[in-house]
């Protein structure tokens, strides 16, 4: 997307892309695509709006007032949620941040190493290795959760922070993306030039290649972060201690309390709303790294 925008002439500061560009004759708005996209946007945003508004409703208002009429209970909901079992919600939030933050970071590092190696070095079995990785991309992680549990049980690691972190560090998709990106963003000439100048391979990687790979790695980090943050099955199978639960599992226990206890809807909805905020914030903060995109290269062809 952004690479396309870059290839065009950049619009002058202050103008919005698409307004003053292109031949003046073709100014007609494409009605059908616009409508379709608008419909798509409504479809995606309506549930979000529902969560935001429902989070402001008190238990009494939740099902009795008009769906999109904001309620009066947001502050109460948040304090009830914080009071639930001595604030275990914030513990879940912290756990999620740890699993997703550290997990995505480690995963990005591993992906960068392996992606770069696969892209720049020629060695026997490289293509086989890459094909195996591709197969891994196609494999839904859900299938692996139970075998991973049995494996970690052998090592006595289940029900620990490590049991959730370890399986998520190696991400076939991350490695795949890193290789594709490294192949495109790090020209062989640059690596060659580094070698001519006598730099060690480690130095070439950290000082020359890595900075060029930053936008790609940011993407890998974001993908992994979101994947881990939203992951349910792996922690569900691995963890039994609810103080180690990530937010997804925690909210699930609030919802499924057995038949004789009503689900804590207001808490779950408020909890889900608050759990989305870090993701939104992360995207807003990290977004700017993407704009560097393909501009960051050292060799002009």
């Amino acid at each position, binding site marked *: 997307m952004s690479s396309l925008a870059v290839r065009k002439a950049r619009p002058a500061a202050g103008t919005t892309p698409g307004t003053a560009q292109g031949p003046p004759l073709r100014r007609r708005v494409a009605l059908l695509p616009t409508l379709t996209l608008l419909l798509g946007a409504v479809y995606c945003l309506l549930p979000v709006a529902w969560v935001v508004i429902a989070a402001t409703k008190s238990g009494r208002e939740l099902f009795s007032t008009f769906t999109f009429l904001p309620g009066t209970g947001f502050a109460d909901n948040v304090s009830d949620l914080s009071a639930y079992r001595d604030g275990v919600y914030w513990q879940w939030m912290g756990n999620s941040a740890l699993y997703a933050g550290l997990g995505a970071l480690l995963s990005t590092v591993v992906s960068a190493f392996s992606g770069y190696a696969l892209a720049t070095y020629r060695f026997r079995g490289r293509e086989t290795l890459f094909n195996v990785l591709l197969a891994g991309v196609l494999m839904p992680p859900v299938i692996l959760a139970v075998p991973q549990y049995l494996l970690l049980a052998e090592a006595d690691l289940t029900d620990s922070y490590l049991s959730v972190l370890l399986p998520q560090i190696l991400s076939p998709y991350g490695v795949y993306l890193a290789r594709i990106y490294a192949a495109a963003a790090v020209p062989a000439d640059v690596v060659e030039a580094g070698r001519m100048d006598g730099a060690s391979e480690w130095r070439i990687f950290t000082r020359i290649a890595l900075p060029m790979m930053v936008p790609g790695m940011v993407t890998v980090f974001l993908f992994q972060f979101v994947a881990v943050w939203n992951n349910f099955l792996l922690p569900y199978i691995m963890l039994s201690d*609810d103080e180690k639960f990530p937010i997804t599992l925690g909210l699930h226990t609030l919802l499924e309390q057995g038949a004789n206890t009503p689900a804590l809807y207001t808490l779950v909805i408020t909890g889900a709303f608050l759990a989305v905020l870090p993701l939104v914030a992360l995207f807003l903060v990290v977004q700017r790294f993407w704009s560097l995109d393909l501009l960051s290269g050292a060799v002009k062809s």
Partner: protein
Amino acid sequence: MPYTKRRRLVTSAVAVALGATTLAACGSSDEDGDTQAGPVSLTYWTWTPGMDKVVDLWNKGPGKREQITVTVKKQASGDTLVTKILTAHKAGKAPDLVQAEYQALPTLVSNDALADISGEVGDAKGKFAEGVWQQTTLGTDAVYAVPQDIGPMMFYYREDLFKKYGLKVPNTWEEFAETARKLKKAAPDKDLTTFSANDSGLFAGLAQQAGAEWWTTEGEKWKVGIDDEATRKVADFWGGLVKEGAIDNQPMYTPAWNKALNTGRQIAWVSAVWAPGTLTTAAPDTEGKWAMAPLPQWSDSENRTGSWGGSSTGVTTDSKNKDAAAKFAAWLNTDADALNALAKEGGIYPASTSAQLSGAFTNPPEFFANQPDFYTKAAEIAKTTAPSAWGPNVNVAYTAFKDAFGTAAKTRSDFASALETMQKETVADLEKQGFEVAR
């Protein structure tokens, strides 16, 4: 795996036939449980809210004396928990104690996940109604769990609106249908209730009341009776009401359903003893306007109810301290203080008959302050619970119910063929799992 399951059923069946006192193959606790030297610590998977506070009573009281400490690990309830327990069991890492719904017990037992604790908790039998206790023995001499809570089914109705429309509380299902039609005539925009294809447990309870036995054993084989006469009667009855439009066909436990209850668009609910809690959140504006009555009967001479919900405490075969775990399970579900705390903190309705009228149950639930004898009546109804017969793949039958009946209810079409589908899929799954099924 199929081999063990089959053997297990064979062993149990033989044991019943011979009246044997112990089941050799059931990993009874005598083999490895007696060595209790020094302090013991146990883990307990449960979804009951406030269970940690109840367990504190144990850890500070009897548990301290016996040097048995229990740690609660709170879980989400549902079928997925059964899968989780079985996965952990495969790795030999299941917790010492688990909470399990009655219908999940055969699944856990046929996978060899639950230990026979008859030696340790056999004496507790007298504290429970026979139909309740029978669910934890699966008809054998073994005991696989201690009953914790039960969900005897009852009929809930809006007292004020019944009066307004001149309706009488139905004693039989025939009268129930009449009431539904009468209401439709008096107020076409209102429904007596709805048939929810989302709630397999409700349908199972209704069938149980009618005398259905969905899973039974015949020699070495399982027999599936989902499409039996009793269940067909229930399915036809509800299918007929849905078809003629006398009741609604929308699922329960949705925001729309909450709204219908809260605004009085649906004025009755076939539910269980825990309904007041649900109504408190689903229909907050109707406090004090409801009343509870026994479930309508299939004939005037009958007095039976089914159950919807309820769970038990089991000890796993992975536990290294089965004796200690069984001791705790017995205390939790029979001790007066423990049950009182369970009712107060967890909101459960106890399976133990002596607890059903004591402590927390001397006053009616807040939402039903207008019916002072709520719990006296509930205890009487609980005594009439029909026996239930669960099998090792209840989850499959339940999923089949949701699919088949969901479509049938939506299109207001024949329920009988939906029941056939449910029967067929359940039998097919049993066979796929390697059980022998009698035809």
